[in-house]
């Protein structure tokens, strides 16, 4: 018989306001096996923990039940507390009377009764708990960073700096990500390329960093410390080891009409291309969708002009297998398609552009070489209208995102300011719902746009843009003066909401990392573990976790690196001891369990057993590798004889909980 201690937490008033904690403690004290029962304001506090430890000693407790917040919150804390007092940490069970009781119920009597039942279920389970010892598994001292934007680069540099190997997988031909397309950065207005490209070069030259450019993650197997990843190196039809990046091929290729994604399709590139001058790696790539040679077998000009002999039309996708201890997701964001917001006439006029397109139109390496010209007729625009929140903060309208995209207020202020600075003859209007500028020197920046640069900020929205006679007739509201205003603009710039990159969803599935309804990766804890995914060994860097500007992205990237280093610095990881274990006496050796195990943790061997009348019998029986088993329990249900059971969640334990609840 266990000697069980029950500890009911008030969580200040979080629990105590709805649950009669005294009554819960009193009632549970009467349960069989309970030798001590108490309640306290904050069980997780130092004093609370000491109270538990003291009770373990005084009452010689063999099991502990804590009625408190979710085990997802403090199970680890209380296990440590008990372990420090000499009790096996797996003799602790938590009854979740906060998230799943006090916070959802209003009636005190009902909530108290439910808390008692949840406590009883935990007690019933503890009765059947057995001390468990965690095994260990080795850590592969190498990290994978998925996505080579500023987030991925920063994480990789920090990990490499600490002396560990790190690979970057980037789906585009070059690393650098969205930041390469940005002209200037707020609030300092320094040139994005000037601060980014040295980092790209650092990453390329760092001997601890290996860059898989033009590559994608194909599959992920394994678990924290022991990931097995297959990387697909897409065929670029250019031998990476031979290409010198001279660019001869990219000027000779006869296929000139390929929309240039770097400039968002506002100019053209060739079928063989290097995305931009500072690309890393600086290697040409053939675009198979446009290359005449690959499509028809006729051409081959790039091959003829390549002095290095790097062109290889026969190249195939290559699958590379690598082992990693940690994976960092840095898949970034994309602006949403504004197709559903055509009241702004984006599809009808080239002079209606997105902010990222505007960024390219202002950039010296952009389609207009840095001179701001209207895309339609390449003339200088005089009146510019910026529209904020295009697709952000939409709730239930089915076409936008419910969240604030966070970066638009600041970059729009930047655009407006730069525009007025470079072209003082322009009239610049910004239509806003709210101007949101929390951040160091951010509001000062926005005020400068208004006060020093004379940008017209109008509280209101644009309702309709009508392209007519070479102008964009903008109909909008000015809420402060309660007017509908009409502006004949030359350009309209849409601050499109940002969303996670489309590749994130399938990747999350591969990683079994959870996502929110907007496809942003979820963090292990929104406040206390913001750079870790709830899935062990998966870390989050940059905008894949939520909208972020550059300084925030870099900060989070370094934070993710720090978390990775904490993992890689360990030689061994403590495994989850709640793993499957077969009872050999009952095992039929039928392989049902093996068929459903996602980790290949189950193997079979022939074993000798004593039969009746001193005979021996040889039987095939299953065994589980506890370092590989992750404890899902699929095998326990597949097993017809019930020989396979899960430690910590055994058949008997779960049924005891069922019984306690249904009584």
């Amino acid at each position, binding site marked *: 018989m266990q000697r069980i201690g029950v500890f009911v937490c008030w969580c200040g008033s979080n629990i105590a306001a709805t649950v009669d904690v005294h009554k819960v403690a009193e009632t549970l004290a009467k349960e069989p096996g309970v030798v001590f029962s108490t309640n306290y304001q904050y069980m997780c506090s130092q004093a609370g923990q000491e109270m538990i430890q003291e009770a373990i000693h005084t009452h010689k407790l063999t099991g502990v039940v804590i009625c408190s917040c*979710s085990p997802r919150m403090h199970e680890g804390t209380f296990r440590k507390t008990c372990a420090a007092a000499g009790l096996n940490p797996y003799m602790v069970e938590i009854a979740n009377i906060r*998230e799943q009781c006090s916070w959802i119920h209003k009636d005190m009597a009902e909530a108290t009764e439910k808390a008692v039942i949840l406590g009883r*279920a935990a007690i019933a389970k503890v009765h059947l708990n057995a001390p468990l010892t965690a095994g260990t598994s080795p850590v592969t001292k190498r990290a994978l960073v998925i996505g080579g934007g500023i987030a991925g680069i920063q994480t990789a540099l920090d990990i490499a700096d600490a002396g560990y190997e790190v690979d970057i997988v980037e789906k585009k031909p070059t690393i650098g990500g969205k930041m390469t397309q940005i002209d200037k950065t707020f609030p300092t207005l320094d040139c994005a390329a000037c601060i980014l490209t040295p980092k790209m070069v650092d990453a390329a030259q760092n001997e601890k960093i290996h860059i898989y450019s033009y590559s994608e993650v194909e599959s992920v197997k394994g678990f924290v410390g022991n990931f097995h990843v297959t990387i697909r190196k897409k065929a670029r039809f250019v031998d990476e080891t031979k290409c010198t990046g001279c660019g001869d091929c990219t000027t000779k290729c006869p296929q000139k009409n390929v929309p240039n994604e770097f400039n968002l399709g506002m100019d053209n590139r060739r079928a063989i291309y290097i995305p931009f001058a500072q690309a890393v790696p600086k290697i040409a790539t053939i675009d198979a969708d446009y290359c005449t040679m690959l499509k028809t077998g006729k051409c081959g000009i790039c091959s003829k002009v390549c002095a290095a002999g790097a062109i290889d039309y026969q190249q195939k996708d290559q699958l590379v297998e690598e082992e990693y201890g940690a994976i960092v997701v840095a898949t970034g964001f994309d602006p949403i398609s504004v197709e559903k917001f055509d009241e702004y006439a984006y599809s009808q006029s080239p002079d209606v552009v997105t902010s990222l397109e505007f960024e390219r139109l202002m950039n010296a390496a952009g389609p207009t070489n840095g001179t701001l010209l209207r895309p339609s007729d390449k003339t200088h625009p005089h009146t510019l209208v910026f529209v904020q929140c295009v697709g952000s903060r939409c709730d239930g309208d089915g076409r936008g995102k419910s969240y604030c995209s966070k970066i638009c207020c600041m970059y729009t202020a930047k655009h407006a300011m730069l525009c007025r600075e470079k072209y003082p003859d322009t009239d610049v209007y910004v239509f806003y719902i709210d101007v949101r500028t929390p951040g160091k020197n951010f509001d000062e920046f926005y005020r400068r746009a208004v006060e020093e640069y004379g940008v017209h900020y109008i509280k209101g929205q644009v309702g309709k843009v009508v392209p007519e006679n070479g102008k964009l007739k903008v109909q909008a509201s000015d809420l402060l003066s309660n007017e509908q205003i009409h502006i004949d603009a030359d350009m309209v710039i849409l601050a499109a909401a940002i969303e996670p990159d489309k590749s994130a969803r399938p990747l999350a599935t591969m990683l*079994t990392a959870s996502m*929110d309804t907007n496809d942003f990766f979820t963090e292990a804890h929104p406040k206390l573990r913001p750079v870790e995914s709830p899935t062990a060994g998966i870390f989050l860097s940059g905008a894949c976790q939520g909208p972020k500007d550059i300084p925030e992205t870099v900060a989070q990237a370094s934070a993710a690196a720090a978390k990775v280093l904490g993992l890689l610095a360990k030689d061994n990881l403590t495994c989850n001891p709640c793993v499957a274990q077969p009872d050999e006496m009952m095992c039929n050796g039928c392989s049902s369990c093996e068929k459903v195990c996602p980790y290949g943790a189950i193997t079979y061997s022939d074993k000798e057993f004593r039969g009746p009348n001193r005979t021996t019998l040889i039987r095939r029986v299953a065994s589980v590798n506890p370092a590989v088993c992750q404890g*899902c329990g699929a095998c326990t249900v597949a097993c017809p004889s019930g020989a396979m059971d899960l430690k910590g969640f055994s058949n008997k334990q779960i049924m005891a909980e*069922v019984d306690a*609840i249904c009584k």
Partner: protein
Amino acid sequence: MQVNGEYKPTIVAFCCNWCSYAGADLSGTNRLTYPDNVKIIRIPCSCRLNPMFILRAFQRGADGVILCGCHPGDCHYTTGNYYARRRMTLLFSMLDFLGIERERTRVEWVSAAEGAKFAATMNEFTAQVAKLGENKRLEDLRCKK
């Protein structure tokens, strides 16, 4: 269970640790209410749910049993919920075949982000089971009155 002349069914909700248990926590964090008749049992994965547990719950007086797990494709263990989906489909079909009310059992995929869905599901399921009244059939299956 009769409370103040009103029938309050006993509902057992098995929730996988990674998505649905977290989703249930989230509905608590967001103070979304659902009936106190719902009691949650944490299991590591929806694939840990042995049909025996469901039958046991009914045997011991549960009126409805619901399984919540990660959405298919998002299982923490990659494939667990796919197995659970087949097992529960066949089990529910069998219970239906035996004439047990099919409204007493349910599977719902609830992610860690779907606190609202969790609460809504529990409200709906409880109401549905309450309509059926006490679970008698599984008890009576083997004894003719």
